[in-house]
Every structure is written in structure tokens, then in C-alpha cells.
């Protein structure tokens, strides 16, 4: 069911409609809830709540041609490649890789 990679594991993404095309969208991965975003080139997962004050990243706004996401509450911005805070040095948003697996997708979490 899952493949281990270091301490992370490829985990089935659940709770998304098959034809889902509205992102960011909340999904389930095992017992965790995550937010799936569309960078324009690929899908990517991020943690549910902003590391600043826990605002919902499902309402995040994509920026920089899909390379960054902006928290809707206080406009803190994170790079989707590695989660690094762009205008908030020292804060990091957890980001996860996503891959296609059969009809669905898996997230490295």
C-alpha cells in the first residue's frame, strides 16, 4: 500500500472528486488532512494550516506563476518547492510531493 522513503511514505490521497479541477482543495492522506494545490505544472501538497497563525491554506492564493502560495489571512508567502517563507524568514510551510498512481494519486508524507 505504501512505499517508505526515509521517514516519509507515499500515501494514497483520498477525498478528492475524480474530476477535481478547483484548487487549492482539502484532501485526506492517511489520518492527515492536507491541501492540494495546482502549480500549473504539477499538483503539490501543503499542510492544512499556515505556520504563522493557523489560517486555512485551502483559501491560499497562488502567486509567482504557481511557484508560491500566499496565506489568505496575513499575506505570508511560502515557496512551493521547499516551503520556505519568502516574506517571513524563519517560517516554513510543510510541502509534499504528489505523484499519479493508477486512477488516483499519492502524496509523500
Amino acid at each position, binding site marked *: 500500500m505504501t512505499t517508505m522513503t526515509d521517514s516519509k511514505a507515499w500515501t494514497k490521497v483520498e477525498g478528492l472528486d475524480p474530476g477535481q479541477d478547483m484548487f487549492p482543495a482539502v484532501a485526506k492522506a492517511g489520518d492527515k488532512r492536507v491541501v492540494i494545490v495546482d502549480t500549473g505544472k504539477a499538483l503539490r501538497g501543503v499542510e492544512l494550516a499556515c505556520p504563522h497563525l493557523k489560517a486555512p491554506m485551502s483559501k491560499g492564493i497562488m502567486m509567482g506563476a504557481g511557484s508560491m502560495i500566499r496565506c489568505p489571512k*496575513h499575506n*505570508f*508567502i511560502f515557496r512551493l518547492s521547499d516551503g520556505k517563507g519568502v*516574506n517571513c524568514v*524563519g517560517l516554513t510551510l510543510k510541502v509534499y510531493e504528489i505523484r499519479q498512481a493508477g486512477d488516483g494519486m499519492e502524496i509523500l508524507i
Partner: protein
Amino acid sequence: MSDQKIRPATVQVLRGARVMDPGQGIDRVADVLVQDGKILDVGDNLAPPDAQVVDLRGDILTPGWIDNHVHTYGTLGFADPDSIGVWQGVTSFVDAGGPGIATMDEFMALMSGRTATHLYAGPYIRPIGIIGAQFTEGDIRSLNGFPIPAWLDFMDRHPGVIRYLKIAALSGYGSGPIKMGKGLAEVIGVPLYGHIGEFQMQPENPSAYELFRVCQEGDMIAHPYHNSGARIIDRSKRLRPEVADAKQRGVLFDIAFGSYNFSWEVAEAAFGQGLPPDIISSDLQQFNAIGPAYSLSHVMSMLLRLGMSLPDVIKAVTATPARALGLQDRAGSLRRGAPAEMTVCRVVEGDFEFVDTEGGMRSADRKIVPVMTFTGGARYDTDLTRCQNEDNWLLQIADDHVPDAAAGLSPAQLDFIERMRNALSGVAWAYNLDQLDLEKAHELRAVFDAVRAEAGLPLREALLALFCCFLDRPFTMQIGLFLLHLERDFLLGRLDDVLASARTSA
């Protein structure tokens, strides 16, 4: 868009506006005669033969707006501070805490005389200024150092720059930190400007209430309508007694809308108990220019919605802040002989929504919109959205390319960069948000100072040389903090890259 900046003729008649100068009790349709940058007269049918006439019939003309609390410099500042100044109807603004006394020289080198909007400073009691890391701002240990001689020397050397001293109601320690701030404010002869609000997210932090007890007449309290712990109203929404007492003593309440500190619910309860603000300011910064603050006029419109009259709203951005800041000789009034600092605005009718910093929304049928700003002998036709340009508020380290500006560094600046590279290779640091090493920021600044002295480079040129290596846009930041923010290996590598490409092109 410099085409919107217009240099007017020597003599001008601003014709037919509703002239509103609450400080002088003026509210009527009149002409304003301006000559050589000064107000010559406010009256009827003023028409010197050679005057240029600006038809303002249907508009409102007020003294130039003063934004008592903005962030132009440092970790919260903008690439183009005028975007929240003259381009939004504001002729004077105060940087609220960007620098501290250990960074006022950097503030002066980068900001003084560089904005069309008149810029004043309200430095933070913390020597380095605002850190921009919210969880650390409230820590009293971040106030490390209290250099009285440096404050006194600055006041002597640069009279009139510092208009208040900013302090926050920090976590715990009773009234201690606030009394230290009040003491220093008295020593340097400026009002105390106290921040309450989001640092008090810890429930019922009582030090916020100490601020109301310590402040005296003319001191200012920012963010009165915040909805974090230690609100100005109790659980039954009754105004706290120390808040009413402070109001009675003549302490001034400044909206300072910000990103965290304006709640419709608290504001409505306060208005219901006779506590409208004395001053309306925006607290515009990198994080709220794209909402929810947007502009001073947006915040003014929210006060209109709360039931303040238009003249009272105008007074709260003109006469009252002018008096609070000691600027009566140059701002906040249309009296004869005053500098022609003016804002032209309209009250537009429609269906509008105004959102507070918590997501609370109120609809309104009126909105204040500035259309022209007159200052420094020039006229600016406003552009409210200029500040929202991403390049203006998103401070981004160019980590995948050398900014173009680095190619323009002078030989003296390159010599300085090389010396900095060598000096910094002997210093170790790492940025840790949870245990912010402010001492290290001061140490990095000391290295910068020593190298600069050795290289004989003016402060401004040295600061810009370093910023050019990392920033595509002209943002500012306290240099010690800026260096601390950068990963050491990346920083040294980038300086090497800049030096290498300079050698190649030479």
C-alpha cells in the same frame, strides 16, 4: 507614472471645493489661493488675473492628510513609500517603529529627503527597531540595551525627525517596560506611542492595561479596537475603567488599523460608549497593502461607517495628529501662510464592503476617495492601487540570480563588498526564528561598521551596495538583521559571484 505629477504655476486658485478644515472650524464652499507653495487666502471669488485655476467644484478640499502610523522602512516597509503617501492623498506620515536608536543612522541614510511625502520617525524603544518576527516582538529581552546618550545625541543632531517614541505593551513584567518607555520619552521630549494588540494574544495580559495607566495627556495608544487578549472592553462589552480614565486625562487613541488590530465588534462597542478615536491611521505595511488595510482613506471610510461625521474623520487625519506630533507650524491646517499641503477627496456613494482584520464585514453606502494631493509645490493625481503592485510589498531575496543593479556598483562599492566578504567569512551565524539572536544582528552591524570605516565608504553607498547583491527592488532593512536573515554560505557565495562578474566585465 510620473506624468501624474504636475508642477503647478506660481499662483493657483483652487476653485469651488467644499473647504473643510476642522481645526479652524471651516466647512463651506470657497476658493483657496495658493502662491509660492503657501496658502495665501481662503475666501470667495478669489481670482487674480494671472492665476492658474483648478476647478474643484463638487470636491472636498482639506488640509493634507497625516498618516500617524505607517511602515516605510525596515522589515515592514515598501519599495516605494510614496505609494502609501502622496499617491493615496497623504502629505505627511510617520514611520512607526521601523528603526530604533541603533539603526536611526541607516534610516536617515536611506530615507531622509527621499520621499515626496513628508516623513517623520517614531522609533521603537528596541535599539534595532521592529524585527518583523511577530512572536519575538513581544519579548522584553529583545529590548536589549537602552543607550540614553545615543538618543540625546540624535535629538541634538537631527531636531524634528523623531516625533514619538514607540513601545509595545510587552508580555508580563507589569508596567515596567511601559514605564521605561515613558521615562525615555520624557528624557528626549516626545510623546509616548504605545502599541496594544496582537502581542497580547496571551489571554488577559495585564500589561496592556498598564499602558492606559502610564500614558499622560498627549501620549498616544495605538490599536484601541483590537480583539486579542486585554481588549478595551470587558466580556460584557463594557468599556474598561482604566481606558475611560486615560481618555479623560487626554491620552489620544489612534486607530492604527494594521493587520491584526481592528475589530468591528470592539469598535462598535467603543463607539456606543462614547469612545471614538482621536486619530485615524492605517498602519500600512508589506502585509496589509493588498488588504485588509489598503489605504488611509479606506480606514477613514470605516470610521465614517461607524458613525463619525465627515469633519470629525478629517480632523482625525489633520488637526489632531498635527498637534499630537508637534507639526502645527507646517501641517494639518489651511490657515493663511501655512505650506500648501492639501488633499482633495470625494465621498462616493455605492454598495461597499469593509472587512476588519478578523474577517468581519460591514456593508456601507459611502466611501472616501482621495483624488489629488498637493505638497512640496507639486500636485499628484492619486493612484490608490499603486501600493498593491507586488514589487512594492513582496520583499524577495533574489536567490537564483544576481540582481541587475549589482552590475552598477562603483569601484568603491566593489572594494567594500570584497572587504565585507573577507570580514564575514570569519563570522558564524544562523537564523533561528524561535531563538532570535539579536546580539548577532548587532555584531554583524559592527562588522559592517568596521569594514565601512576601513573602506571610507558613506553609509548610504555601503547599504545600497549590499542590498544590490540580493534585492531586485529597493527595499530597506536594518543591515544587521538583513545579514542575519541570509544563509551564511549563500551570502558569501553571492558576494563572490558579484565580485567575479565585476572582474570579468572589467
